[in-house]
């Protein structure tokens, strides 16, 4: 440190300025104000990545298209042709992505499939995360329940899923509902455990203790203290549920516990297409690409959202 006075000699100082100033207490308080907002930062961090933005736009476009197309198009995706000449057509002006084994238009089927699969996956995500969260909250908050719930968790995750999938198939119709139940029958407990662990860490935090000291009832603790803190987790888990659900739909089709055969879903289309893939690769192309886009997009979105919602990444 230089010990010379570094007064800027070129500047003339006004002696009158060397007097007591008026003290403004608000000014002193306000300096501590930070304009940081959790959600704003989360959203900004999330969209900062252009690839994520592009994916969100793409996925939105695909989903909108899948809902709009069935409304505006008059092509029957289930229209079977009896004539071999109509079967397995290559892409043409009439059928943009060709026709399948029975002469059905793949372009049309793909969009119906996207709609149905997405709706199904969405419902599953909703139920897995919804039920999981509620159960997880109860589980996390009630210490007495813990050993029982852990046992239930062990039992459910220990029974091979095929066992009850087939049993379910035995007692129920093949329908969207069956598929929904069989796919949603397990996810919730996994989610519940996830949320339980998160809630456990929130449960004993000081602000919760404070609420208890104020006599805040359980219901309000849940809605005000807990859910707002895990809402980003909920969104993330729900987003990640979607690729998982679509994936398991494909797998269940492979195992043979699937949907009604007339049902058009991406899983059904891809499984159909797989059989004749080496012969007519284009049949699988479009549905597979859309399916991959959806699963990849949701996976990326879910993960990026998780990153974005982590305050540590709010840089």
């Amino acid at each position, binding site marked *: 440190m230089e010990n010379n006075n570094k007064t800027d000699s070129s500047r003339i100082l006004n002696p009158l300025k060397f007097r007591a100033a008026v003290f403004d207490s608000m000014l002193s308080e306000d300096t501590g104000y930070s304009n940081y907002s959790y959600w704003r930062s989360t959203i900004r961090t999330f969209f900062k990545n252009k690839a994520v933005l592009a994916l969100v736009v793409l996925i939105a476009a695909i989903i909108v298209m899948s809902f709009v197309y069935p409304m505006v198009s008059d092509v029957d995706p289930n229209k079977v042709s009896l004539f071999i000449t109509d079967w397995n057509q290559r892409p043409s002006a009439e059928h943009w992505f060709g026709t399948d084994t029975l002469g059905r238009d793949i372009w049309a089927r793909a969009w119906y499939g996207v709609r149905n699969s997405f709706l199904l996956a969405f419902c599953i995500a909703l139920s897995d995360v919804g039920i999981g969260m509620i159960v997880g909250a109860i589980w996390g908050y009630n210490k007495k329940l813990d050993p029982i719930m852990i046992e239930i968790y062990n039992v459910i995750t220990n029974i091979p899923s095929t066992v009850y999938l087939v049993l379910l198939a035995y007692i129920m119709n093949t329908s969207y509902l069956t598929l929904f139940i069989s796919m949603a029958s397990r996810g919730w407990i996994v989610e519940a455990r996830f949320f339980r662990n998160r809630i456990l860490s929130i449960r004993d935090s000081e602000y919760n203790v404070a609420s208890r000291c104020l006599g805040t009832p359980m219901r309000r603790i849940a809605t005000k203290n807990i859910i707002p803190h895990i809402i980003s987790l909920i969104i993330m888990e729900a987003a990640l549920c979607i690729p998982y659900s679509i994936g398991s739909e494909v797998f269940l089709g492979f195992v*043979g516990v699937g949907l009604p055969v007339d049902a058009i879903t991406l899983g059904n289309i891809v499984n159909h297409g797989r059989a004749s893939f080496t012969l007519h690769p284009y049949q699988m192309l479009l549905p597979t690409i859309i399916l991959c886009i959806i699963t990849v997009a949701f996976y990326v979105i879910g993960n990026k959202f998780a990153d974005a919602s982590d305050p540590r990444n709010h840089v």
Partner: protein
Amino acid sequence: MKRFIAILLAVAMVLSLSACQFLPKLEDPDTTPAATMQPEDAANAVDKILEGKTFENVYKTYFSSSYASFNYYSTAYATVREIIANCIDGLVEPNTYGVYVPSLAESWKSNEDQTVWTFKIREGLKWIDHTGKETEYAVTAQDFVDGIRYIGDPLNGAYSLRVVRNLIEGLYDYYWLLDDIDSGTVTDTTREDAVATFDEVVGVKAIDEYTVEYTLTSSAPYFLSLIESSMLMLPVEYEYAMSLGEDFAIDNEHMLYCGAYYVSAFERDKAITLTANPNYWDKENVTIETVEYQMIPDGTTSLEMFKRGETDYTSVEAEAYLSLQGTEWADNLLPTSHSFSTNYLWLDFAGENPEFNKFINNENFRKALMYSLNRESLASLREPVDPKRILRNTINAEGAIYDSNGVDYTDYSPLKEIKETDYNQPELAKQYMEAAIKELCDENGNIIGCEPTTVDYLPVCSFDVDGKLPVTICYVGTDDEAEIIMAQLFKAMIEESIGADYIDFQIQAYSGWTYGTVADPLNYDIYFDSLSTGYADPSGILTRMTTDGAENVGKYNVPEFDALIEKALAATTFEERLQYFAEAEAYLCGNGFVIPFISSLRGYYMSYSVPYTSPLTLYGNTKYKGTLVMSEPLTKAEFDVFEAAYDVERAEALKAN
């Protein structure tokens, strides 16, 4: 599972039956001028082709569903049949022209009415084990008696027992006596005592060490084909089998062999190796040293592997056939020729669906269904080039049963008319439907006497019916890809020809044991299945299709048919028998109680083996004895030459017989 069986049957048929040329009626995909050539020319042409060839010792092929067990008496798996056909010889076997020649039996005779058959067994043969070594056990007449003894015991759980149990004198009673003792209904005799009576009561006897005699309950001119087709007629070394108990034939090490090959290596669900039996009585005719099977789970893979030379055979399905056109493999595509297995629709006459129940019991409706099927369209799923050749309107296959004059069973009137009818008549279908509606519905489209209800076909499905037109039909199939496509085609053609305002065709795909959960509890309206002519007699199928028969899955009530079957069974001559059977079958098909539509044949195949060199096993499974395997794939041109030559030779051979 069903699909695999069907494929396997087809594969087996295709492999063995590369000939159906003795049936001039069936159109060959592309008729060659060779068909008219002289025997000498044909033989020369064949020799010329074979001259330039080198032959392999090893044949690599595949299977697509697991080999559960080798127990030829108790296993339900058709896959096992092929292994057993090569490893356990029966009394007789067909030669390359399908004429029965001696196998373990050197000679045989039957009495006048063909109810007692006596076989003289080849002497000095020994059973061998899985290492190919001879064992102490000799192949004797007693082994054949013991085979029947084995299946006669309910504890051994013999499979597909019905035909044999009913045919062999006394076996039926013996079987149920033991069962009653086991279940405790009969207490006045012990199991040991009952078992001891076997030799007395059951119609199979070892007259001496090398003579076995079967006494049958009825005349059976087809007995030799039964021996070929039914594994229950195979011999067993009883002492050995009993010592193993339930372990008998669970794998290659727990059984003994007496055929051309033995199973030298067995990896469950993976690979099987057959090695030529060094002590085989007909060693010089065994041309392939080793047959290697491997598991290939699906058709696409087997085709790929064939292209890469990893297997010597592949079936080529319709779609693959089209995609191979214009490639280097186009020349190697060979048409499969024939299958005795028929695809037909079961109709549920006693199901819970009141709408369908009303209509199916109406003849006009059944006819509407019959005439609504575009069989050619269905057939083109499997045979895109010439779908017509696999159409089939009858249950028993053409070319499977001949009378002693060589007349084909399906050419008996009135079956012939049915065989030749073109059922693809949507207009007619619609007319029949309208007629049915007139009879069954009021003018508002309400089905008379039919209340809205919920149909419970669980676990398959459940749905609501409103008691009005359109008629709701619940079609149940397996979740196999090809079957689903076929079902969707059914739906399209039925709704198109009869009209979607009359018919609401719903498809349910079900996985798992379809019979136990779908067919048996009548959880369906329409169901698709196949039946195969098992031996050279229509009784094999038709007696099972009577009102109380096992194959009457849809619970129809056909007293007329039953009466005709009675008559047929009681007939004195084989021709008369066939006549009655033909009438019965025509009744069943003509009135739409069952709706056969195509054969189980699957389009094409590619192979390294020379056709017509192995025994023509019409009812049994492929035998590799005598097969020649080339070092390059067979071409279509070569195949045509072989085929022409074979046709000529076979005609000669049959004439000589």
